[in-house]
């Protein structure tokens, strides 16, 4: 027994230390990558691109499933992007709520004769809507039967797109106006073919949003989204930027990613049954390039270009994380031939093994560790002199690495206006390992269990609260607007949320677009 305990102790220590070392290496890599980005990219580049006839076209694709609470604000946000040549494609994946009706009404849509070619197989396509209002001429709404996954909807969007590059995003995302100019730059300035580019996502929960434009960034007030804000910054700025330096980015987020359409289609599009469509797609594209002995690059930019509504409570967090964990399991099952396969070079020998050992196995090892500690406790094997020290060792490292990330974030762009807001994030880092991390571990295990027992999992929708555009602003809404609200909607059983939505819609409708709005420019 003692021998077994000894082996276990050493395993855990070296596992944790390897993880810590990998984080330190990634921190160094990301520092270099961020500085490199900052040195060779300026805001004048944006102007050059905006005024150029040579700017390539980009299709912005956003699938929607039961998104009636936020769809209008978010589509408006997508339409405000600043780029000389782009289209916005919303794929209504058989929504059962009023998503499509709201879109038709708000954007004056009519059914258009559209030559839809099914380059990638999807669930049946029904029809295409285009706007009669010239203001929304770049908007296309594709209506299709529900495919059960976001991946299927993305594929339909890909089939309908016309430009050589596409940006995939979610309709619950608010994008910075210069997202397209910033994200296309790595593709344009590389001699090697760049198949995908990612950027940082943050939480929109406490941000000020006006007419679909972020005007003031704040860390979320509620604890769960604030934890997630820190987690996202860490994952993007430290993880993905670090991997970018050695061209080994494991995935580009489904919330915000720009892709080379030709390669995406040649790689077979998104796995229609995949619940981790982003990582699955990235893996397919990278594997396609390697199978065909083509040079490629996956880029990442350290700017936050996308704000998404984070889970406001544990219940919704649980649903989101269970789906992600299930998707990760599915990804390793589908692409198991890549793991430790030298044919896939860095992807097979570095990125995949790293994700497998330190992300996929981590919750299992942690859970086993907790159970084993309880066992050791009852049998009196715990060395009480040193056990707290080992715990403190991991804890201090977690705080240090989060502090590094906060600095990297400040180095890149100062999104928060006040020092206090930055320090709030630091305080979050102190309690995150105690409160948030165990939850994530538990939900991951739940997701793995759900995958192994093959429980059905529906489209990854999250219960939205809708954008409030700051409660203080709501107080300024004219009484007339309130009176003008549709009485049917006020009596709707959806109650509170519905009323909240209406007030925002009406306010947006009545607000004249003015120069007052000053968007966040990254």
């Amino acid at each position, binding site marked *: 027994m003692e021998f077994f305990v000894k082996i276990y102790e*050493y395993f855990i*220590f070296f596992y944790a230390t390897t993880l*810590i070392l990998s984080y330190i290496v990634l921190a160094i890599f990301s520092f270099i990558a961020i500085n490199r980005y*900052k*040195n*060779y990219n*300026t805001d*004048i*580049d944006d*102007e*050059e*691109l905006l*005024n*150029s*006839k*040579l*700017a*390539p*076209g980009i299709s912005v694709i956003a699938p929607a499933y039961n998104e009636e609470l936020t769809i209008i604000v978010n589509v408006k946000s997508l339409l405000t992007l600043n780029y000389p040549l782009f*289209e916005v494609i919303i794929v209504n994946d058989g929504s059962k709520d009023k998503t499509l009706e709201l879109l038709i009404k708000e954007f004056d849509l*009519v059914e*258009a*004769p*559209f*030559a839809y*070619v099914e380059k990638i197989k999807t669930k049946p396509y029904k029809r295409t809507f*285009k*706007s*009669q209002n010239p203001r929304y*001429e*770049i908007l*296309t709404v594709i209506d299709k039967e529900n495919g059960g996954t976001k991946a299927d909807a993305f594929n339909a969007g890909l089939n309908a797109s*016309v*430009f050589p590059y596409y940006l995939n995003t979610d309709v619950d995302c608010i994008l910075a106006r210069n997202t397209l100019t910033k994200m296309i*730059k790595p*593709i*344009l*300035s*590389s*001699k090697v073919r760049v198949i995908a580019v990612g950027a940082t996502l943050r939480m929109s929960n406490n941000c000020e949003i006006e007419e679909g434009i972020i005007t003031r960034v704040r860390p979320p007030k509620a604890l769960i989204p604030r934890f997630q804000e820190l987690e996202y910054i860490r994952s993007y700025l430290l993880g993905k930027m670090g991997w970018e330096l050695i061209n080994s980015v494991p995935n580009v987020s489904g919330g915000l990613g720009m892709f080379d359409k030709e390669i995406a289609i040649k790689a077979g599009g998104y796995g229609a049954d995949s619940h981790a469509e982003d990582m699955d797609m990235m893996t397919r594209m990278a594997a396609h390039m390697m199978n065909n002995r083509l040079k490629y690059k996956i880029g990442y930019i350290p700017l936050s270009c996308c704000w998404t509504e984070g889970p406001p409570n544990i219940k919704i967090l649980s649903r989101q994380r269970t789906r992600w964990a299930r998707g990760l399991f599915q990804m390793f099952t589908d692409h198991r031939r890549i793991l430790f396969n030298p044919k896939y070079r860095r992807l097979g020998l570095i990125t995949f093994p790293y994700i497998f050992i330190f992300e996929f196995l981590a919750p299992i090892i942690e859970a086993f560790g907790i159970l084993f500690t309880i066992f050791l406790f009852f049998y009196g094997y715990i060395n009480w002199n*040193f056990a707290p*020290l*080992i715990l*403190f*060792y991991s804890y*201090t*490292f977690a*705080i*240090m690495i989060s*502090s*590094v990330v*906060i*600095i990297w974030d*400040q*180095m890149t762009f*100062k999104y928060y206006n006040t*020092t206090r807001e*930055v*320090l709030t994030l*630091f305080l979050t880092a102190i309690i995150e390992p105690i409160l948030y991390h165990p939850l994530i571990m538990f939900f991951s295990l739940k997701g793995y269990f759900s995958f192994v027992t093959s429980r059905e999992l529906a489209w990854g929708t999250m219960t939205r609260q809708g954008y409030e555009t700051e409660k203080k602003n709501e107080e300024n809404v004219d009484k007339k607007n309130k009176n003008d609200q549709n009485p049917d909607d006020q009596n709707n059983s959806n109650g509170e949320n519905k009323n909240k939505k209406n007030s925002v819609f009406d306010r947006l409708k009545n607000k004249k677009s003015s120069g007052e709005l000053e968007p966040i420019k990254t």
Partner: protein
Amino acid sequence: MSFVEWLLSFVYKIKTFPLIIQITIVLTMFFLISTFALIITIYTIRKKHNRVQKLLKNSVPEIKKLFEVVLFENEKYDELEFFERFKDIVEEVNRESLDLAVDVLVEFKNEHRESDMYLFIINSLGIVEHLERKFDSRSNSEKMDAFQEAFVLNLNKFDSKILVHAYSKNSQIRNEARNSYLALSTNDPYRFFDEYSGDLTKWDEIELMQYLKLQSERGNLEGLGKWINYSKNDSLVVFLIKMVGYFKQKGIDEILLEKLEDDNAKIRAEAILTLGELGIKETEQTLIERYYTEPEICQVSIVKTIKKFNTGKSLKFLQEIFSETNNTDTKKIIGEAILNYSYEGKIAFQNLKNSLKGFDLTILKHIETPLIKYK
């Protein structure tokens, strides 16, 4: 017990622990000290940021106001007087405040607010010297800024500075310098055209195009066509052919016809498109004859060029290839060409609509509807 004694006894005690515990203690202390240092760094960064924000908030509107009266309201100052007015606003004329001045000027330029007085402000504040310092800076981002700011402010006095960087070991700086030389040099702007190693990136093309625009405004674009023949770099040749079409350069018909026989399909395709841009209609029959022997990229160019010529002579050819092609994207382009091919084209398009069914008919409706902007 003093702190030193406690520390020594602690160190002595650590030495008696197992190696793993010793490592853990050392690393934990390292993490704690680092975290503390990081917090101080965060605080320092924010403090500096707040100071800059305050400066921006206070000075920028004033600087804008001062520049606007000189640039757009013709208020007259002499250089010294203007310098003093600027100094009154920023308190000290240094690197930071001159950067603010440059930013304001760049903003005006990007908003296309034209004036003859830009040079007055540039000379009064010594912005040329400021940019020269940036060119000499060790920071790559400063250099990149200097290249772009000099271009936006239309300053072509930096030949020697740029030449130094045109042979830099840093490929990004080298590239930027060579591209910028086109706009910022007075002597031989095309000097580096034949020194590009490998394919041009799309960003190179975007930069070069805007620099060529500047040369075009200065009336220095005459020599562009000759580089199509001189250059051995295919990607540069493709780009230059495109630019010849964009800037409507005359007198290079022979070169373009020669390029129709090039081995590289991209060069042929671009030459065909440029024939269309320049309206060299006598080549229409030659292009039709080539259609069936060319790859798809050139076929698409031929259709676009025939649409551009719009002579009314090739309607039958367009109808023929529409029925023959199976590629939906190409079909859309041909259909669009028929629809926009004179009055006869419109009638032919309607006839096609009456005769076709199913997906082919949908393609025609797709082309025809004004609701779809990007076909």
